[in-house]
């Protein structure tokens, strides 16, 4: 048991490092059906398939696939009624919130992993780490460093608000049936990217859970990029902003003049 835990710990540090030695140590290898998702003018969401193989998998092991999108800082404000009007107030800044976050697993998460393991790895919507550094400080309680929020109960409401907002656009998702085990330790998972998928670098982590703890994991990278005309226009707007502005005005004038010309001829 102790040896197994030690191996698991080694595994976690080494991220399925092949030089860990132990013959029966489980390993996860994963790949994506496409490593780059291109956003073109007709982009209305995409579904990509993550597949792979697990070696040394045992009967009751579970797989969890976590896909994280590029992280951004957010400001969450609570609306309060002032003179009858709802006004955004009390901003709380959150750092490095993933713009996309989805979890798929072979079984419901609470059956797959222990609370502490899920929390440590940030697996699951309720365990996703949402850090608001301005309202928190760390202190040592009973010899353990813990994060204490200065806004108490409200912090949870702010975090829920982020999750709720993202779930509405299907940017945050958690499914209990997303990962399918096939024969011979092969698996596949569907990753749904909604129309609002932001561009950037994504990572997909595959965790092998045994007795509530992750014993192996593998990572694949996924890029979401603007492509074709969309990419050209976006780059144009940012790299040659003044020229872009002039072109926008010129096109508008052309259409306006064209309409006037057609109109006056009739």
């Amino acid at each position: 048991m102790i040896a197994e835990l030690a191996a698991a710990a080694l595994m976690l540090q080494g991220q399925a490092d092949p030089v860990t030695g132990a013959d029966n140590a489980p390993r996860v290898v994963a790949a994506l059906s496409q490593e780059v998702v291109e956003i073109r003018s007709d982009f209305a969401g995409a579904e990509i398939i993550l597949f792979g193989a697990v070696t040394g998998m045992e009967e009751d092991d579970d797989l969890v696939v976590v896909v994280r999108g590029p992280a951004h800082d957010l400001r969450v404000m609570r609306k309060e009624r002032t003179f009858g009007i709802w006004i955004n107030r009390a901003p709380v800044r959150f750092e490095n919130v993933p713009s996309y976050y989805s979890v798929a697993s072979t079984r419901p998460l609470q059956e797959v992993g222990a609370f502490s393991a899920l929390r440590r790895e940030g697996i699951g919507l309720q365990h996703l780490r949402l850090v608001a550094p301005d309202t928190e400080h760390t202190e040592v309680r009973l010899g353990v460093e813990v994060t204490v929020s200065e806004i108490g109960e409200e912090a949870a409401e702010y975090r829920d608000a982020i999750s709720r907002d993202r779930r509405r656009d299907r940017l945050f998702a958690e499914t209990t049936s997303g990962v399918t085990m096939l024969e011979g330790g092969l698996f596949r998972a569907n990753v749904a990217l909604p129309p609002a998928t932001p561009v950037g670098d994504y990572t997909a982590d595959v965790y092998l859970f045994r007795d509530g703890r992750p014993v192996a994991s593998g990572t694949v990278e996924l890029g979401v990029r603007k492509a074709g005309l969309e990419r050209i226009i976006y780059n144009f707007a940012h790299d040659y902003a003044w020229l872009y502005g002039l072109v926008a005005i010129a096109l508008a004038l052309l259409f306006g003049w064209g309409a006037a010309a057609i109109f006056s001829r009739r």
Partner: protein
Amino acid sequence: MQIYLPIAEISVNIFILLGLGTGIGFLSGMFGVGGGFLMTPLLIFIGVPPAVAVSTEANQIVASSASGAIAHWRRRTLDIKMGVLLLIGGSAGSIAGVQLFAFLRSLGQIDLIISLCYVGFLGIIGGLMAIESVGAIIKRNRSAHSAQPVSKRRKRRMIDRLPFKTRFPASGLYLSVIPPVVIGFFVGTLAAIMGVGGGFIMVPAMIYVLRMPTNVVVGTSLFQILFVTALTTFLQATQNQTVDIVLALLLIVGGVVGAQIGARVGRHVKAEELRIALALMVLVVCAKLGWDLVATPSDLFAILPAREGGH
């Protein structure tokens, strides 16, 4: 059919955008208004970020005001001198408005200010228009009885005491340059914040404050709007990168078609009834935006991007 907007970064049904453009174009052709005050809230409603909606709408108004301005230029029904003064004020106002917009956005209050501006101005303009058109219809129905004697003598007002007076031959006015510049500035600021041309404020101001003859009012207003919205488009594009050219083109194409149909339909409707219909439309938009301000929102939290440092 979905189309991905490269700057707004959302996927929208292309027919919704063309339909919006045509519908608003129809109304603007029929009523002779720009339509920005309807389009911007609708764009925000379908999920376009407010910053992109306001900037892109400025770009669309360049197109819709250009065709009108060209027509008035041909007929010489515009006061260039007055237009240039309005434009000087408007340019300064546009620059100020774009800065103010960026500042309010950093505070997380831009949506609120946009809504408040809309409710305030639409309420006032719609209310005044409704009262006036109802009055005009009542007057028309009993015009035989009461023909009010209109006093020809102009009262000397505050505005006539201002310095830097100059002649405006096209309008037949002798007036200080200060009021047009101030009005232009005010409208330019609002145009940048609200994503409108500002004609619905400028036209009444020209008639009631500057007392310009009505035949040159619309042309001069379009002349000023054309240049101010072009400047706003340029500033938003260079400073905030919020002009979505794909969105603008779709709205322009729809708008051009809609405006022509609207103008034709408008010719068969009586002016007062048309004005009442427009007033009601303005009031409906106003009421909807006002209701959204006071009604309990479905989600009490707003998720905004963190303040970008530097700007």
